[in-house]
């Protein structure tokens, strides 16, 4: 009986090893850099940018037809929902079985760059798509680690702005939107009454928390990673930045305690329905509209600074948000892929697509188009051009988002349930997060 077991186990393991070996080996053999063996077709994974997956298809397909007419290359489009995109890319990178061209969230750039699955945009490659200088530099900085060839090029860009409810401001006697955080808190206190609040925050959403903590830290002159890519979460400046954000619920009480658990865009709904007077958001126009708020009811201003007239490194008031376009390294149609990148980043396509999606073109030639000169987009474009910085472009960016985002969520929970959030408790939370970062 026992020998039998052993025999079965041995056979199973042997079979498994054989298959594993072939599995791993097979992956790598197809991982060599691509070529041009199938020059007439391309597969393109687009991220969801419009109001629905179907809407994206309707937007993109006519453009892909144009590309086919110009080049004779047929593009097979799949719009991948955000919930699946990263896992699909991961599976593609692991197996070598993926699209030729794909959209990625720009904060993933450095992580994906580290896998080596994406084609680096070196000088030669850039020359094939019209050069590096066509792109807005802040947006290009969010396409890979500093000092390396970008792993992608920017496609759609966004920035944070301060949305404010004009009527609530007028009723509270506030003449102009705040330009410093002190003013914002003061205005917030004026607005906070009768069950309404000054500011809405998405406290249960780790990524949102990170975006704001990042900007506040920059304004304090600090960063969450040092130049070598090592985590520096608990510097006094970072602690102050995180505390400042948590205090909107805690000490300042200008945001409703309930915001601490918001993770499903409830803060947007609260702003749209007049429950809160201010909101920091990226291009919110179409969402606000679908929540029933008219464009003339709100204004958009740059997110405040620590002091009026801040300059240099302190003058950052948004992360560079956006979508990048990348080429899968083992594409079977390298030339076609680059032609497609060139096409998608051409001034004409940039105008059409960004105008449709309500985002900003990261390509300089396209920016002057009147479609981007509505008051809100003009404000955001200026932020993007002058005072936006990319989130840390390090391979461990997602750990940072998870760990610090979660820590901030816990701090919000404490603040909302009436516990004191002190400099020490913030520091402890950040130290704990930092210690969980992998050493690299």
């Amino acid at each position, binding site marked *: 009986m026992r020998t039998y077991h052993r025999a079965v186990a041995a056979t*199973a*393991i042997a*079979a*498994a*090893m054989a*298959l*594993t*070996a072939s*599995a*791993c*080996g097979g*992956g*790598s053999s197809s*991982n060599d850099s691509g070529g041009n063996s199938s020059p007439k077709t391309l597969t393109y994974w687009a991220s969801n940018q419009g109001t629905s997956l179907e809407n994206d298809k309707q937007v993109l397909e006519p453009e892909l037809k144009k590309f086919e007419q110009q080049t004779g290359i047929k593009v097979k489009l799949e719009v991948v929902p955000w919930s699946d995109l990263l*896992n699909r890319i*991961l599976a593609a*990178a*692991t197996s*070598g079985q993926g699209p030729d061209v794909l959209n990625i969230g720009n904060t993933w750039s450095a*992580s*994906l760059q*580290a*896998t*080596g*699955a994406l084609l680096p945009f070196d000088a030669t490659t850039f020359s094939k798509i019209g050069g590096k200088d066509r792109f807005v530099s802040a947006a290009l900085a969010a396409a890979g680690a500093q000092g390396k060839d970008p792993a992608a090029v920017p496609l759609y860009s966004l920035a944070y702005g301060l949305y404010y409810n004009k009527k609530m401001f007028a009723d509270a006697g506030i003449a102009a939107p705040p330009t410093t955080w002190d003013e914002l808190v003061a205005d917030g206190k004026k607005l906070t009454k009768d069950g309404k609040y000054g500011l809405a925050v998405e406290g*249960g*959403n*780790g990524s949102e928390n990170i975006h704001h903590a990042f900007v506040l830290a920059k304004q304090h002159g600090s960063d969450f990673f040092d130049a070598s890519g090592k985590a520096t979460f608990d510097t006094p400046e970072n602690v102050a930045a995180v505390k400042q954000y948590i205090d909107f619920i805690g000490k300042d009480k200008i945001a*409703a*305690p*309930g915001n*601490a*658990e918001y*993770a*499903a865009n*409830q803060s947007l709904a609260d702003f749209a329905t007049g429950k809160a007077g201010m909101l920091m958001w990226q291009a919110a126009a179409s969402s606000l509209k679908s929540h029933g708020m008219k464009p003339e009811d709100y204004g958009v201003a740059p997110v405040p600074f620590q002091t009026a007239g801040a300059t240099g490194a302190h003058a950052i008031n948004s992360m560079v948000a956006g979508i990048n376009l990348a080429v899968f390294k083992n594409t079977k149609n390298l030339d076609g892929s680059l032609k497609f990148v060139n096409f998608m980043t051409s001034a004409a396509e940039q105008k059409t697509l960004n105008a449709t999606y309500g985002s900003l073109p990261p390509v300089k030639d396209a920016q002057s188009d009147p479609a981007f000169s509505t008051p809100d987009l003009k404000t955001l474009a200026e932020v993007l051009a002058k005072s936006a910085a990319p989130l840390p472009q390090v*391979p*461990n960016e*997602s*750990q940072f988002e*998870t760990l610090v*985002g*979660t820590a901030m*969520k*816990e701090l*919000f*929970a*404490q603040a*909302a*349930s009436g516990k004191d959030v002190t400099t020490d408790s913030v520091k402890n939370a950040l130290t*704990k997060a930092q*210690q*969980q970062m*992998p050493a690299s």
Partner: protein
Amino acid sequence: MIARLRRIGLPYLLLLPALLLELLIHLIPMIVGIVMSFKQLTQFFIRDWGAAPWAGLDNYRVAVDFDAPVGQALLHSFWVTLCFTVLAVGLSWLLGTAAAILMQDAFRGRGFLRAIFLVPYALPVYAAVITWSFMFQRDTGLINHVIHDQLHLTSERSFWLIGDNSFTALVTVSVWRSWPFAFLCLMAGLQNIPRELYEAASMDGAGVWQQIRRITLPSLRPVNQVLVLVLFLWTFNDFNTPYVLFGRSAPEAADLISIHIYQSSFVTWNFGSGSAMSVLLLLFLLVVTAIYLLVTSRRRDAADA
């Protein structure tokens, strides 16, 4: 001779399809997973696993170093998961058993009620759990509306999705999702209890409650043995419920191990360390299962004798 060969060969032949499938879909990937746990499989290497450097026991060492934050967090999450699993399985089983027994005899509306009770099982996870998260919202949810606004049980609206209450919320949703399954299995199990047993007991003057205790529950033992074990394993590894309820970052009080492993493999792209944690869990669950099977089988043998 041929007949004999056929007799010996038949069970293996019957098992063959199941074996092949298990091997392809479950066992080989599992063995690959175990191999992964000894590798330094970060995003720098996932394109070519063969080239990933061997990590020896490093991944394990990090996971079980309970003085360091990573190990501490894992241990904490392990206890949370254990408490959560015991509570959720216990409650699901209790509800399932009670409902199955109470609905054993025909009454008006029984068929309808049976279908109703399977509804949580039929609704897509994503939508069902999102709905619960709406209900648990502090300012606008049904739960606080009932407890605070209508019954005035609490002096203040409580948070359910963040802070310590999140554990309660998680258990509630998990029980809601899994008790119908217990109900389904037990209901089917009840059908195999011969009615004569009840009739005989009834002749002996046993009341309903005594019949339940003396006949129904013992007869369900074989079904229960599998059901409780499988519920335990599933609940322990449940990923969808906490993920949809809390998103990528669960509150500390409800930080389940599955989310933890997801974070240390998919979110951070370190499959070596995620695999090592999984292998440790596998070992733990194997031990629990072995003990469980030993104890329950012995009890069953004793009961049969």
